[in-house]
């Protein structure tokens, strides 16, 4: 870890000089995937490839404590008051933790306190507007394993969960009342708006995306607007409280030219193959007892589902890579907005494996869409940050296409007309200083194995859904002619009774509707 002063370019803090236990902890956890500052910029949270939540003091980069998380985290945020850390995990759950853990929790009481900095017992509270606690209707003690499917750890409290890989989330407030909300997005095209901290109350959904969502942003100059991006070829703009879609910005045409990293796609066959064989044998056992066979479908534990149902690993198991040409896959990585001193408003975004940061004016009305400019870096963008002066700090993957050298961190400035300049004289010294031996040693001192193990572009393969086979199979359908023929008997009878005209009509109606309005994962 490094913290570098913006003005001087000097390394202010580094963990290279940290005490042994901290160094050990860092080594064990692996590369840092995410780092977030609290609102006062005095504390830092880092997440790595393990299940630890680490909190540091910025001054001196002192590791304050680490806590065990229930599952591997995908992202963390501080609440506005800095008192709570909210963590999303690979399984699809969001938990919250007090920023600084206090001493072990007192025995759970029936009434709860509203102070989030105190560790809470592991159950959610029911808040009834009753003046006096009534022993008859208050919560009975929770059986130990009642939350076992979404167990919390380290004093964490479950906020909410998706039945899908949770890709990104943010915390926000509504303009009118100032209530807090958490907006979560997943691989199954859902953007969900829930109360915070009572994440179990869903305010609504922003539905309409046809692919996974991987980036969310609420502009500070337009706090009722949500911008989302993912696999869809446009960014979407929503009025997030009502769920209404208010704008779309097509991006693929521009972005396509800057897709540096390409991947061989998975072809979704997944577990279907195994299960089909098992089903086949069941079929062959003979259809003796008509009713019995159906009734005997007792819950048989499925051998094929042996592993822990971790969303990410399950979805990564999809299919084998086939020797296809490499494809350009769109995964929006990050969305940000900026209001430059001249009052102009911009949306900035990057895509996974893309070699540019893109820039487009924030739409003033529903129909207006400006051109998309880009800051071309020639190397895949890993992350970027823009400040209020229009300065954009961009971190690139220097190890990609190593024949072309590049600094690891680049600087750009957005001029008033939206054009971009690659360096700005006042900060030139900074840019040059990145080449200082000390820093370049740190940034480039990695072996190719280490670099590939970072797996920086894995989402290009794991996020898109490839039309899977039915894993419950058309066991009766593809199989012996008997069941199909048998089904046809009743279908024929129905057709005959209706007279062909009506049956045709019915089929026509059915054919039209799904095309217009539904998803087909073929």
């Amino acid at each position, binding site marked *: 870890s490094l913290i570098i002063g913006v003005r001087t370019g000097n390394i202010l803090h580094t963990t290279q000089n940290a005490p042994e236990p901290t160094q050990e902890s860092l080594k064990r956890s692996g590369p840092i995937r995410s780092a977030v500052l609290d609102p006062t910029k005095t504390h830092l949270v880092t997440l790595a490839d393990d299940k630890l939540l680490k909190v540091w003091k910025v001054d001196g980069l002192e590791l304050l404590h680490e806590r065990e998380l229930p599952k591997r985290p995908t992202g963390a945020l501080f609440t506005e008051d800095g008192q709570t850390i909210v963590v999303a995990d690979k399984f699809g*759950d969001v938990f919250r933790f007090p920023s600084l853990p206090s001493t072990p929790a007192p025995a759970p009481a029936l009434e709860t306190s509203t102070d989030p900095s105190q560790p809470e017992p592991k*159950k*959610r509270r*029911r808040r009834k507007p009753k003046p006096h606690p009534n022993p008859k209707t208050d919560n009975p003690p*929770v059986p130990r394993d*009642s939350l*076992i*499917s*979404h167990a919390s750890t380290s004093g964490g409290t479950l906020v909410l*969960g*998706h*039945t*899908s890989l949770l890709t990104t989330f943010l915390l926000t407030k509504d303009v009118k009342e100032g209530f807090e909300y958490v907006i979560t997005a997943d691989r199954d095209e*859902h953007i969900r708006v829930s109360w915070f901290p009572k994440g*179990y*109350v*869903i305010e609504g*959904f922003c*539905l*309409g995306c046809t692919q996974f969502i991987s980036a969310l942003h609420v502009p500070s100059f337009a706090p009722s607007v949500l911008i989302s991006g993912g696999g869809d070829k446009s960014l979407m703009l929503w009025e997030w409280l009502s769920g209404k879609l208010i704008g779309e910005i097509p991006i693929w045409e521009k972005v396509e030219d800057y897709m540096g990293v390409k991947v061989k796609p998975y072809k979704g066959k*997944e*577990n279907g193959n195994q299960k089909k064989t098992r*089903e086949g044998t069941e079929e062959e056992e003979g*259809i*003796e*007892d*008509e009713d019995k*066979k*159906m*009734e*005997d479908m007792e819950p*048989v*534990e*499925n051998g094929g589902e042996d592993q822990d*149902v971790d969303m990410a690993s399950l*979805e990564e198991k*999809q299919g084998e890579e086939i020797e296809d040409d490499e494809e350009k896959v769109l995964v929006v990585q990050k969305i940000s907005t900026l209001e430059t001193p001249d009052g102009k408003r911009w949306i900035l975004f990057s895509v996974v494996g893309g070699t540019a940061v893109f820039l487009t004016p924030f739409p003033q009305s529903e129909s207006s869409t400006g051109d998309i400019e880009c800051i071309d870096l020639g190397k895949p963008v890993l992350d970027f940050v823009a400040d209020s002066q229009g300065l954009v700090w961009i971190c690139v993957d220097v190890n990609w296409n190593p024949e072309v050298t590049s600094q690891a961190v680049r600087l750009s400035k957005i001029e008033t007309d939206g054009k971009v300049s690659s360096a700005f004289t006042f900060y030139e010294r900074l840019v040059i200083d990145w080449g200082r031996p000390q820093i370049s040693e740190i940034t480039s001192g990695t072996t190719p194995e280490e670099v590939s193990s970072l797996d920086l572009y894995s989402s290009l393969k794991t996020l898109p859904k490839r039309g*899977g086979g*039915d*894993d*419950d199979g*058309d*066991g*009766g*359908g593809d199989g012996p002619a008997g069941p*199909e023929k*048998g089904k046809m*008997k*009743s279908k024929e*009878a*129905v057709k005959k*009774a*209706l007279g062909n005209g009506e049956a045709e009509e019915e089929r026509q*109606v059915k054919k039209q509707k*799904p095309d*217009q*309005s*539904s*998803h087909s*994962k073929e």
Partner: protein
Amino acid sequence: MTKRKRSSNPPPERDDAQKLLPQKRFYRQRAHANPFSDHALDYPKSPEHVDWRVHYPRLAAEGKKPEFADIGCGFGGLLISLAPLYPDTLMLGMEIRVQVSQYVQDRIKGYRVAHDTEGKGFHYQNVSIVRANAMKFLPNFFAKASLSALFFLFPDPHFKSRKHKARIISPTLLAEYAYVLRPGGIVYTITDVKDLHEWMKSHLQNFPLFEPVSEEDLRAEGKGDIVDAVRNSTEEGKKVERNKGEKWLACFRRIEISRD
């Protein structure tokens, strides 16, 4: 459980109306489908994108929408029982298994035709089924507070503790069920597996947006026929009867809570 020995007599002849109905033996299906994986499923982009006339060609015309949803409806026994009792209410079954949902679809079609052409039985125009993964896509079908009843009848118990997260009642999914149910709406659960009953009951009890409602209260509200159908009308329910098992009912009402 011993299997019944099939007699050597051929099955009895089916009359015309019965011939319209599908026969289960042609719809074999293993009991499980993994709700976490991607199926080749059709599902709507959002509730506004659903054309309910496809499901209810006669009754959805005036913009009517389903109010009852049977999650994991299996062979449709509950819906078939409830349809004539609530002829003005649209009901939808959701079933993830392709063969089973196909069977129910064919069954409903058969009933509708029998009513129209032969004047037999109830019209069944108010009941339909969709093959869907309710655990993932319930909010795609139903808008906020659009349902008045949700049914979870004899759900898959997923006995092993590592499979508990696949259970249809979970602390995270309850938020979605509360979202689609209007305040005052009822969740009906029933199972013959005591452990699952305790699980569902405690999860619902501890969920701030649900409060328990007793069978007595439900009957007093005039919902006794629904409770009876929940107990007795499904294949699972009948099987439990035959095996002299116990059924445990647990019902909850959707309530509202305040911000703080």
